[in-house]
Every structure is written in C-alpha cells, then in structure tokens.
C-alpha cells in the first residue's frame, strides 16, 4: 500500500509539500541516523529492489550519498554517469527515460543541469523519481538533510532565524532550503550582492539583505552557498578577492550572529572564497561534516518511501486499476 503519510510518487521538490509530510520524512530520517551509527548498518528493507543513480552532471558527494543509502537498505544500485555529450550523440532525455523505464527500476535518483529536466523525465517513467538537483530549481534531499541537521541541534525549525548567503540566483540548494524553512515556520534571510539575488525573490517570503553584518545580526543559522568559479570572473562579481572581502564568512562577520549560531555549507567548499577555513573547521559551530552524515539517512528515508510507493502503484496497475 502506498505510504499515506507521504503519498507522492516522486520527490521533485520541496514546493507543494506540507509541514506534516516534511516532518514525516525527517522523523524517518532520524531513525536511520541511529541505524547508521550502530554496528549493523544494513537492512533488507529494499532487498531485491533496484535504484538507479542517473547523473547528467558531475557529482561525487550526492551520488555517493544516494549509493550508500540504497546499499544500506539492501537494494541493488546502478550508477549511470551520463555525460552531457550523450545529448550531442542524439539521445534525448526522453529517450534515456524510456530506455531506463524498460529495465523496471524502482527509483531513479536524477541530477540534471537544466531546471525542470527531472520533472520531464519523471513524466515519462513508471517508477519513483527523486530529484538529486535540477539546474537552478530544486535539490530537495539537500534541504531535508539541512533541516534534519538543524532540528537535531536546535530541537525545532519553527521560529528560527536562518541566513542563506551567497549565489542564491543560481542555487537550487537555496531554493529548496528557503521553501522548506518557510513552510516549517522559520524566518529566512538571503544575503548576497544584487547580481546574485533572483528577481522578485522577496515575493516568495524571504527577507533580502546585501550587507553581511546586517543580515547575520542575531541569526540562529548561517548557511553558506558555494560560488561557482566561472561566475567569479567579472560577470556577476568582480573577483574572488572582492567577494571574500564583502561576503566571505569569517570570524568578524560571524560575530553578528547569535553566539550559538550554527554554520552550514552544502559542499564542496571553496575555502577562502565564501568561507574562511578557521570558521569552516570550528568544531563548536560548524556542522558541515554532520550534514554529510545525515545526508545518507535522509536519502535512505526518501528511497524507502518512494520505492514502496512505486511498488504499490505498479501493483495497482497490474490489477488493472487506474493509479492516481
């Protein structure tokens, strides 16, 4: 039977999820954190099931995290790293989806450089799809693992003041995070130079700051975003040096935040570009390594729920009933 607490076939984004659904995934993830810290980490929850990691963009961390999550649940995992050149070979995204679908996977974890591409693929397959990051759109498992990290440390999400700093314009991590945090009742500030702030973003409910000191004032959480190098050479910001001076997180700027504010980063970090090593490695404040750890637990929870929903859906289909 389909999981009534999370009845969706796919996890394509945070947009549209209810607080109850988000809490359900976080609670389930929490249990997997404990499993992952015990000696016996693997289970048979998804034994015999097939998870395909379909990555159209280079990724080590997210792909490894999905792979490990699937293996700990006893599933078979296939990693497909599809270079962008396959598009030039003539196979379209839809062709790839149809081909993979014929192999009857249970869940596809997909990353693609174009916004909306994961949805396009999800529309063409019978299995569950989890968005592992699409363009500048969403990266829902990252937002869930960030929320889990915060909830475990602060005991709640509601009422917290969170600052998201850096390249919000191009960041799927930022979008998924502020959508989730706002849904859960947190206040969100984004801090960036104007060139990296998406248009009309304030209409989505975030507060916009262009000054780090003002934006970090009294926040509970500081989330730093990675700045892509190719955006550093004069197109959006003049130079690494100038960016770090005004928007890099160092001790001085961090002093504006609450004394117990947590420092987060989705990785991989550009030390000395958006974050000072001294701050990133501060064991008292930085939860960056914990984020990586909890990422596996979150992906276990998501894969389990989607694989079960996928099985329920296809069983219904086999009985000739129409799915919903």
């Amino acid at each position, binding site marked *: 039977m389909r999981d009534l607490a999370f009845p969706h076939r796919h996890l394509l984004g945070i947009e549209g999820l209810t607080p109850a659904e988000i809490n359900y995934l976080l609670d389930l993830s929490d249990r997997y954190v404990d499993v992952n810290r015990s000696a016996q980490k693997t289970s048979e929850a998804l034994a015999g099931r097939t998870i395909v990691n379909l990555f159209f963009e280079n990724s080590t961390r997210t792909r490894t995290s999905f792979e490990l999550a699937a293996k700990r649940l006893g599933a078979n995992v296939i990693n497909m790293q599809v270079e962008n050149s396959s598009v030039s070979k003539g196979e379209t995204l839809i062709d790839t989806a149809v081909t993979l679908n014929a192999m009857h996977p249970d869940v596809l974890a997909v990353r693609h450089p174009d*916004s*909306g*591409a994961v*949805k396009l693929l999800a529309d063409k397959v019978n299995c569950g799809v989890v968005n592992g990051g699409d*363009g500048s759109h969403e990266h829902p498992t990252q937002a869930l693992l960030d929320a889990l990290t915060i909830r475990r440390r602060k005991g709640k999400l509601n009422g917290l003041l969170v600052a998201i700093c850096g390249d919000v314009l191009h960041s799927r991590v930022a979008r998924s995070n502020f959508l989730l945090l706002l849904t859960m009742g947190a206040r969100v500030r984004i801090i960036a130079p104007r060139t990296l702030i998406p248009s*009309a973003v304030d209409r989505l409910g975030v507060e916009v700051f262009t000054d780090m000191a003002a934006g970090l004032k009294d926040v509970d959480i500081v989330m730093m975003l990675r700045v892509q190098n190719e955006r550093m050479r004069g197109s959006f910001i003049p130079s690494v040096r100038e960016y770090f001076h005004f928007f890099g997180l160092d001790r001085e700027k961090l002093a504006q935040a609450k004394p117990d504010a947590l420092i987060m980063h989705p990785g991989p970090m550009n030390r000395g570009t958006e974050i000072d090593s001294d701050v990133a490695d501060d064991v008292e404040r930085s939860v960056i390594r914990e984020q990586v750890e909890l990422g596996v637990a979150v992906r276990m929870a998501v894969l389990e729920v989607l694989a079960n929903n996928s099985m329920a859906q296809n069983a219904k289909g086999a009985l000739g009933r129409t799915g919903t």
Partner: protein
Amino acid sequence: MSIAKPGRIAYINARVLDPASGYDGPGEVLTSGEEIVDVGRKLFDGKLPADVDVIDCDGMCLSPGLVDMRVQLREPGEEHKESLKSASEAAVASGVTTMVCLPNTNPIMDDEPTLEFVARRARLLALTKVYCYGAVTKGLQGKELAEMGLLAEAGALAFTDATRAIADAQVMRRALQYGATFGLMIVQHPEEPTLATGVMNAGEIATRMGLSGIPREAEIIMLERDIRLVAMTGGRYHAAHISTADSVEIIAKAKADGLKVTCDTAPFYFALNELAVRDYRTFAKLSPPLRADEDRQAIVEGLKSGVIDAIASDHAPQDSDSKRLPFPQAAFGGSGLETLLAVSLDLYHNEHMSLLDVMRRLTLAPAELLGLQAGSLAKGRKADLTIFNPEEGWKVIADNFISKSKNSPFDGRPVQGRVLRTVVDGRTVFNAMPAEAKHASAKAR
C-alpha cells in the same frame, strides 16, 4: 498547372463585415472572376441572374480574408517543421488569404532568387497568397545592409531581420535612413539581445522555477532606442509582437509625436500570461516571452485604443524534437496560424472590441501597413474572402493541426469562431460549409 477562372458568384444571406467602409450588417457580395464587382444590403431583390452561382451564407459572417503579417515559413531549409504547402493549407483553413513570411529561411531571403523561389512555389500551390519580407542585413548577421532596394523591386514588402533584433545602433540608424530613401518599412524584433539571455519572463515565476529570466526592459530599452533613431532619421518603423505595458505607452507617445511608427502583437500576448509556462511547458516558451498578467491586460487596452495597429499570428512552427526537451534547451516559438482568428475573437466575446474592429486588425490594418491591396470588400478589389461563424465553439487540439508542427501554447483551450469557407481571387480554396446549406441555396435559385 492551369486553374479554371471562376465565373460570377453571389454570396447571399451574409453578415457582411467590411472594415474599409465600416459596414457591419446584412448584405450580399457579387464577385466575377477574381474580383469583387458589387457589395450591398440587397443586390438582387430576390431575382438572381441565371449565370450566377449562389453561395448562401446562412447568416454567417463574411469579411475580407485575413492578412497575417508575421509568419515563419520553414521552406526552404526546414521542411520537416513546415512546408509552403502545409503552411498554405493551414492558412486557408484558418481564413488567412494573405500571409507575409519572415526571411529567416535557409537560404535566408537576402537575395532575389530566394524571394522568387518562394513566390513561384506559392503561385503553383494557388492557395493563400504569399509575400515575403526581405532581410535588413546580409545573412541576418546585423552588420551589413542587404540589397534592400533590389529586394523591394523583387517583391519584398518590408524589411526585417526576423527573429533577431537589429541590435547595433549604427546599423539600425543606417537601415532606417537607407529604407527611407525608397520608402521602405523596417520591422524590428524589439529585444536587446544582451539582456535577453534568459528563457522566460523574469520575475517571481522564473525565480520559483529556477529559470533564467528575460526582463521586460529588454523590449522596452530597444523600443526606446529605436524611437530615438526614427526621430533622428525620419525612417518608417514597425515594432513586431509587442508584449509589455510600457511598449504600448512608448508607441503611443511616438505616434502622438508624429513619428512614422506602428506595431502589432500576437494572440499569445493578449490571451496568455507567464503562468502558461508552469510545469515547464515548452510549447509556451515564446520570444518575446509571455509576460505578467498586467502586461497582458495592457496589450488588450493597446488594441482597444488603437495604439496596436494589427494582430499577427507570429506563427513559429517547431517540431516535437525541438520542444520535447528540458525547458532551457527547448526552441522558442508557438504555432499560431490555426488559432489566429478564434483566439482573436476572444477580444469580441469578452466585449473588449467590436467584431468589426477585431476584423480590422486582422485584415485591413496589416494590409495598409504593408501597402497591400487587400483587407477590403470595395468594388474592384480582389475577391479574398472569409466566411466564418463567430459563435461556434471548439477546442484547440494541436494534434489535429494541418500545420506540420503542433507546438501550440493554446492546446486544449476552448475557443469560439470557426472558418467555414475561404476564397482567394474569387476561387474557393477551403470549404467546410454544411452540405445542406449548399443544397438550400440551389433550391433558392
């Protein structure tokens, strides 16, 4: 191929809509051969001459055939998307008796042989009348002027770089100056390319979808710059498919200042807004992009006030391979020919404009802009006619389009207004009139 010359034909029991005379009422039209010979409330007083064929319009609307001033032809070059034949068949089934095609074919229409090729192919098809724009610059590269004078002699009605803006201010200045030498109109795709690097309208929806935005200012800035150049050169300028509220204001001011400036828009921009791209619907990925609803409403107002002179289909056929892609990679453009009349009639059904005024923007207005003897039911004019039922409802199903491409942003939309018969040079080239009506007319004789 020879086509029998039509004899004398009487169109009776019609609601005649003639934007040229301003007449909207019951009437009859008599054609002989290729021409209209008489129009009136009652031409025959019940006694039809024996040598006349009768077409009983059964109270349906009879207007001049539609003049579609912005159609992208894909022949020569991309016949898998659209051929002259498929576009012409789609056109006549949609009441379009004249279409004017952009020069972005392959080869590009920047020389006489390509223009002549299209003209000859259209003559052989003998469906809708086909005219072409010439390229403003060689290869549409925006650098060197094409042979505008010679192209005009070869039949180019006006000049444009099609879907590309003439971005270089010096080139635009010279195009306007040189065009003014021969009285030629320059048609601009008003969009500053350096600002238009995104894939949809900039704003909240784009931010939510994680798509790069094209700000409204891309259009506004280019229009403002161009208007300055028109004032400077005295050139004749036409802005194609305007899409923002500010654009309407800018054109209104330029007209008030006495500049030779006109513009058109497409049904996309008064019938849809940016919400149509939600769920990453690539069929609604257009250039210029669909805007916010305030802009859409301003376009409707611009049509009502007359600031926007004409409505064109902006027909941009794309095959499914160009559209079934992730949104950022998908091609721009929407199929427009087969929904031109019905979606434009929304303006009438929603009581924004009179039926006659809507028809004016689709017929006489574009004809006058381009210097065509069309869009009028005056005696002596070519008998290019459309008979349609403005009330008949139907649902747009793009898969049923005659056009080779099915990329309609209106797919699934309920519309009102059905073309029943299309006549070009006195000859019926499309007929969907009920057989009973024809029978009844025979008896009436």
